[in-house]
């Protein structure tokens, strides 16, 4: 399983765009990149998943460069309720040990 590295924390203000970059230099060919959000005392919640290039859904975008050694989660126009820990997880089909890294604590201020 590819090891991931993320910033420990990021601060932002309401209405701003937040970009969190995750490094995964040892990503394997069949690995997907998945991001989760976790609020205190709750289970992680899926945000977005991608394999290459760009993926967008109703809450976020995921940018993956051609070498796939990193990925960037983009949260547009954050609000106070986006304050949470964000985890980048890398793993592929039949990769049964889906392990989380340390995560990035995002704090959104008014």
């Amino acid at each position, binding site marked *: 399983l590819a090891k991931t590295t993320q910033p420990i924390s990021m601060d932002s203000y309401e209405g701003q765009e937040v970009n969190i970059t995750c490094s995964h230099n040892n990503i394997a060919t069949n690995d997907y990149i998945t991001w989760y959000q976790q609020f205190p005392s709750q*289970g992680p919640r899926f945000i977005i998943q991608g394999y290459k290039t760009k993926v967008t859904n109703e809450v976020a975008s995921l940018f993956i460069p051609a070498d796939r050694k990193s990925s960037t989660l983009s949260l547009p126009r954050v609000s106070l309720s986006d304050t949470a820990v964000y985890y980048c997880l890398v793993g592929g089909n039949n990769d049964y040990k889906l392990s989380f890294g340390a995560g990035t604590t995002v704090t959104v201020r008014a």
Partner: protein
Amino acid sequence: EPEVTQTPSHQVTQMGQEVILRCVPISNHLYFYWYRQILGQKVEFLVSFYNNEISEKSEIFDDQFSVERPDGSNFTLKIRSTKLEDSAMYFCASIGRTSNTGELFFGEGSRLTVL
């Protein structure tokens, strides 16, 4: 929306006691996981389960831990003789009707307090 349910939400036990945490994964999912999160720390992988057997386990998952899928719906984590350091939130998750790519669905967790 489908959801993973866990019981109990909170359990307090004495050191040395056995604890069973229960989970009902999403119907028709094939891959099941237990994770642990000590207060203030990251989510740690414990074990994965597929096709009625453990497919991967971490170094945390020692002989004191066991998992079982006793019927078609429940997925349990047993800690045989709890230690103080077992105090944590335990999350169950399930994924995939055909593969284990895609979205991991987590339950709300079971908080275990060992006294």
